[in-house]
């Protein structure tokens, strides 16, 4: 029996997203565990010249569904096509990312296929014919290892920014182009995409995130964070308290009822470190905390800390970065 691990690799603006290479690394290891092949499906347009970027992950076959209709992701366009492909090739495992796209697509797909799934995993392994996924739950207070108990396909999505990208020696793959057949009556249609107010890196994509809490009393104080972020090429985020106080917009909120970020560096100013905030930030590789209060819970999570006046220290940091 050929156990194929099928990866859904995300793209946008005619380029693979960074998560595609993270997922390829994860898929490479899992396919080896299963002693099976690694395949990938790509949906979009204008990606043919980019396929070579996928050569160092042991992928042996790529299904490329190309159409102008697929340039922007929309679940009612993508799901039927992906469902048809999976029914035809019958993979053992299907992996995606638990991104905005993945959260739209994979649960719908699983239900259409009549199988369960596990979302937002930080690890997935094949152990003696059992597929076991590990994921954080309850705001990251606890992790759970879950085993699939019924038949294939086994579907899981991986947490963004939770894996290093690792390449092996370059090897070729077969590319199979699949014709996109649009359904006549789609359940939904994407009418318009309005660009966000500021052209900024999304906080969930950024390698460095500079985050502010309620100690930065107004949006003027937040401007120092924007200045620091500009110098280091990072994105600015905020705690719920700062958003509720009107210092920052909701799309900047990190935490249980906001976004989950896992940058290489998370620097937080005046954030107390409540469980609900850390639920969105504790996947960060390195955490630096600046806070006036030596007893603030944030120092339990931080790797480096400075106790002192948040505003003053932020200004000094900006000066040091500029020199």
């Amino acid at each position, binding site marked *: 029996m050929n156990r194929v691990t099928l990866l859904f690799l995300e793209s946008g603006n005619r380029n693979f997203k960074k998560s595609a290479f993270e997922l390829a690394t994860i898929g490479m290891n899992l396919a080896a565990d299963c002693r099976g092949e690694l395949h990938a499906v790509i949906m979009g347009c204008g990606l043919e010249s980019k396929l070579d970027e996928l050569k160092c992950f042991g992928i042996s076959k790529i299904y490329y569904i190309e159409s102008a209709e697929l340039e922007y992701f929309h*679940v009612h366009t993508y799901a039927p096509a992906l469902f048809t492909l999976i029914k035809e090739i019958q993979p053992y495992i299907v992996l995606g990312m*638990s991104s*905005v*796209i993945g*959260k*739209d*697509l994979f*649960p*719908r*797909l699983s*239900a*259409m296929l009549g*199988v*369960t*799934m*596990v*979302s*937002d995993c930080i690890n997935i392994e094949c152990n003696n014919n059992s597929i076991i996924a590990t994921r954080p*739950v*309850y*705001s990251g*207070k*606890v*992790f*759970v*290892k*879950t*085993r*699939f*108990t*019924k038949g294939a396909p086994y579907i899981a999505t991986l947490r963004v920014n939770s894996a290093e990208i690792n390449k092996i020696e370059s090897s070729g793959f077969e590319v199979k182009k699949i014709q996109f057949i649009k359904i006549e009556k789609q*359940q*939904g249609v*994407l*009418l318009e*995409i*309005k*660009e*966000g107010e500021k052209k*900024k890196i*999304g906080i969930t994509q950024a390698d*460095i995130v500079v985050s502010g809490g309620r100690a930065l009393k107004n949006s003027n104080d937040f401007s120092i964070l924007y200045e620091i972020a500009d110098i280091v090429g990072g994105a600015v985020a905020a705690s719920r308290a700062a958003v509720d106080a009107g210092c920052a917009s*909701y*799309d900047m909120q990190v935490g249980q*009822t906001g976004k989950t970020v896992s940058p290489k*560096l998370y620097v937080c100013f005046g954030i107390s470190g409540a*469980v609900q905030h850390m639920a969105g930030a504790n996947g960060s590789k*390195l955490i630096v905390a600046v806070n006036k209060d030596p007893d603030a819970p944030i*120092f339990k999570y931080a*790797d*480096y*800390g*400075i*106790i002192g*006046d948040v505003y003053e*220290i932020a200004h*000094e*940091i900006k000066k*040091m*970065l500029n020199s």
Partner: protein
Amino acid sequence: MRIGVCIKEVLDTNCSIRLNLSNNRVATEGQKHIVNPYDEFALEEALRLKEKNSDVEIITFTIGPERARESIYAALAAGADNALHVVMEDSILIDSLGIALIIQKLIEKEKIDMLLLGEQSTDYSSHEVGPMVAGLLGWAQAMGVSKLEINMESVLVSRETEESNIEIIKLNKSCIIGVTKGINVPRYATLKGIMSARKKNIIRLQIEDLGLNNTELTGLENEKFFYPPEKGNCTLIEGDPKEAAAELVRILKFEERLL
């Protein structure tokens, strides 16, 4: 128009998580439970639709033990018309697909036109149930919805993408809408609402009444829960603001090599 709203009861986020002896379950006995805040947004959105259109009837769906009645009464007090309670002990193993199967049956049984629910629940944060129900029914779906409008033939929603852009999407009227925070601010129940809630009928069901049995409810088994490893000590950087800032930048540039 019959609008279904999912009301899930979850552990209060301030609770510390305790495990059973075998570490394969989270202990919920004696812990404080609340209505999933995201479901509160969904209910509020349904109540606003009802204010605009008196033809709207709101029916809540809850799956859980007897304890969940408190959450159901809260929803009725806020203004929901009817409630269905699929009674199920915490000990029964069920995954998102199992939940979705139950909700699918409830939607069909109650001839629901549209389902509103939170895009996630604060305990497992799987973001799975909404799209799974849509997939089972073959209905339209939209998740992370921050704005909702219903007109004669269709439903119009706004939601945010990964790149912080806003998508405007048109959906068929039979749809599953997963709302996010920021769509509205839920109202407080009035005293009148609280009093009349206790007089409203909660219809109780078992999964067998829906033609389902326990084996269909899950395809997963939790082998082990474990706590994240304790973080190592935080290195505090000493000195006045200027010295501390200089030392931090030095560490990040030359030791951690992140800048």
